[in-house]
């Protein structure tokens, strides 16, 4: 009966079937069979872990599980922290699913109700973003049932409600951005917002390293007061009902499911018109209109050194980088993640020795991102290939375009650090450029074509280069640490750092010989 409904064209379940199929196909680049095998194997492992946990806690389960007030509060905080990360992921997926996927014109010109399209696509987004918790938590429901604890079946509706809630908030934020900025600008804004929401979790964890002791103590007192029975964060607060829902308490479960479903339906009802307008905007050919160039205007191209071939190529690479919202978001995040370390370093704490290696690793990773963009994601390698310039020169210019910006960002820090700790500053000044160059070489020496739009998935598409880049970054980070703390171990760290570009040189030899740029 259900199968028949799913196969009935034009219904919500029918549309959802396709949405889930797309989501599934987008998960990885491997063949469908390998894909299923990997997921099933991972799921089996999680089932075994769940079984071990249930076995270990069997005595407590027989007595009946009741979480202590403190456990409820801390688990509840954990839930909302995780939910924030989920929301960040949902936002990034939503803008893409609503305004970037090529099938929206087809769907909107079909006789399907646009509200249904929004509902189904939103569900697809929510479920894709929640796939990891779904796969991780459902085995506990299955094992619980086998262990005589059917109440854990509540994980099913609870985890779906969590996905629904994330989708509802994600859709609402996306459509608000579209209303305020238009579909095209909203895409960039959603990426930045999603990343900032994700980063806020990290910064939240690092608060104790950043804020002064007095503020920390005041906050701690406030939290303790709020955790009392009458406070905002009291154990029986509705804030923690999602956790109770997961644990099988019927009233919180019913409330959580109802709240998520009603909110999702409300958001879909209130925003579907905005969704249609945004989809039409994003599929139209027009971009942000600029004032047409005056008929009498004169063209001025850069002259002298700035007009040289090298300068013009560098300028083109940097323009493309600066106009890429993903790379800007990623760079901002990496700088944001550095903040707590910087605070620790500035206070002169013992753990400051980790700051220099961390800076080296971050520089290498940032250069890796840029090198991927300038080399692998070169939009038109054929244009470069037909130009009267040697590929080696192009490669050097592209490496320079990737290496220069992160190193320029480091210079003020190195100068500042010279006054605080000259040895650490010198190590940073020596190792960071080497790590940057090494990261760039991983892409330049082993050229592989990639699509700029797939930056977020670049690790999957070219896992070898990403692995080499990571290995090189870690190797140079370890080298920096050894130089400061344990010079003898350099004999281990430097070979690891050098192995990555050397391997890239060997793996990419044939491609370079055939004149492949990307």
């Amino acid at each position, binding site marked *: 009966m259900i199968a028949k409904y799913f196969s009935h064209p034009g219904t919500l379940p029918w549309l959802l079937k396709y949405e889930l199929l797309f989501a599934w196909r987008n998960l990885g680049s491997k063949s469908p069979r390998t894909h299923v095998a990997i997921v099933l194997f991972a799921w089996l492992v999680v089932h075994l872990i769940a079984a071990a946990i249930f076995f270990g806690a069997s005595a407590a389960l027989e007595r009946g599980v009741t979480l202590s007030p403190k456990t409820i509060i801390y688990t509840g905080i954990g839930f909302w922290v995780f939910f924030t990360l989920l929301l960040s992921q949902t936002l990034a997926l939503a803008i893409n699913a609503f305004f970037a996927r090529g099938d929206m014109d087809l769907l909107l010109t079909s006789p399907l109700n646009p509200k249904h399209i929004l509902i189904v696509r939103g569900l697809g987004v929510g479920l894709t973003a929640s796939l990891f918790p779904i796969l991780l938590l459902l085995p506990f429901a299955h094992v619980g049932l086998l262990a005589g604890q059917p109440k854990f079946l509540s994980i099913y509706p609870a985890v779906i409600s969590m996905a629904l809630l994330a989708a509802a908030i994600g859709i609402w934020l996306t459509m608000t951005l579209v209303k305020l900025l238009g579909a095209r600008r909203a895409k960039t804004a959603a990426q930045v917002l999603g990343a900032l929401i994700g980063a806020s979790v990290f910064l939240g964890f690092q608060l104790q390293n950043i804020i002064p002791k007095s503020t920390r103590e005041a906050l701690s007192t406030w939290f303790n007061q709020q955790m009392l029975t009458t406070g905002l964060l009291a154990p029986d607060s509705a804030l923690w009902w999602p956790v109770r829902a997961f644990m099988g308490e019927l009233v919180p479960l019913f409330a959580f499911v109802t709240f998520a479903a009603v909110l999702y339906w409300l958001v879909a009802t209130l925003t579907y018109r905005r969704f249609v307008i945004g989809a039409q905007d994003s599929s139209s050919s027009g971009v942000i209109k600029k004032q047409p160039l005056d008929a009498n205007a004169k063209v001025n191209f850069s002259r002298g050194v700035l007009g*040289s*071939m090298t300068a013009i190529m560098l300028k083109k690479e940097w323009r493309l980088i600066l106009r890429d919202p993903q790379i800007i978001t990623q760079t901002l995040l990496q700088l944001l993640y550095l903040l707590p370390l910087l605070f620790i370093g500035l206070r002169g704490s013992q753990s400051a020795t980790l700051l220099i290696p961390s800076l080296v690793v971050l520089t290498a990773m940032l250069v890796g991102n840029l090198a991927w963009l300038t080399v692998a994601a070169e939009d038109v390698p054929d244009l470069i290939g037909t130009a009267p310039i040697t590929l080696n020169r192009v490669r050097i210019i592209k490496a320079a375009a990737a290496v220069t910006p992160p190193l320029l960002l480091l210079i003020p820090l190195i100068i500042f650090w010279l006054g605080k700790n000259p040895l650490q500053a010198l190590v940073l000044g020596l190792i960071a450029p080497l790590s940057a160059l090494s990261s760039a070489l991983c892409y330049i020496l082993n050229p592989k074509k990639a699509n700029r739009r797939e930056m977020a998935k670049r690790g999957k598409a070219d896992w070898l280069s990403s692995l080499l880049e990571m290995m090189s970054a870690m190797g140079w980070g370890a080298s920096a640490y050894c130089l400061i703390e344990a010079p003898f171990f350099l004999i281990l760290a430097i070979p690891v750092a050098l192995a990555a570009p050397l391997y890239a040189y060997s793996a990419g030899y044939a491609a370079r010989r055939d004149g492949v740029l990307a």
Partner: protein
Amino acid sequence: MSTTNIPALKITNLVKNFQSNTAVDQLNLLIPQGEFHALLGPNGAGKTTTLRIVAGLVKADLGQVDVFGHDVAADPIAAKRIMAYLPDDPLLYGKLTALEYLEFVAGLWSIESAIAAKRAEDLLKWLDLWSKANELTEGYSRGMRQKLALAGALIHEPKMMILDEPLTGLDAHAARDVKDMLTDYVKRGNTIVLTTHILEIAERLAARISIIQKGKIVAVGTLDELRATAGQTGATLEDVFLNLTAEGANTAAPKLSDTAQL
């Protein structure tokens, strides 16, 4: 030997294999300076591979390609300096404006910036792109993109242009603009080698036509010469093309001396 006697393009015994598939098989072709030459063939005949070898994008397994006397394999920089390659998918950067794009292309060919700026202005006005010159090309229509790519190809004033399906997807107005521009370019003494599936374009624009099948040139000449080869006096190019590329047609490669009858 005077420079005007040097052929614009001379392809000798060109061979290119992709694993077990032979894309170009002992291909010979001679195109004099100032000719509008069309290269026709069915899908997978080896047209694009041949043009990509000429443009220096693919390395040949055997044979030689000379552009105005410069061996593409031995002296690629000299050969690339005087030619431009324009495939059916325009070679553009969506995140650059038209002016930024032209400045970049001019930079690649080391054109002095003042000269490049003047040429960019003239080309953009001529191709009716001037009012959009400061907009990112990702918002351009297909026709605008193709015209801008053409401007990019022309900004360094190449002596020969290699065009792979340059009119694909263009509307009637844009197609007319591009055809006029190409005709004008050849009138100024330059050379064009063009592939197209639109036989009417080859019929109207090309002085000589080569027909390629299974990596070999099976016929070359003016339309009348092709009609004679096919034994179809008064036939349309379409009839001649279908006849010459029909399965079982003679696919023996003509000798270089045959193709050299200019």
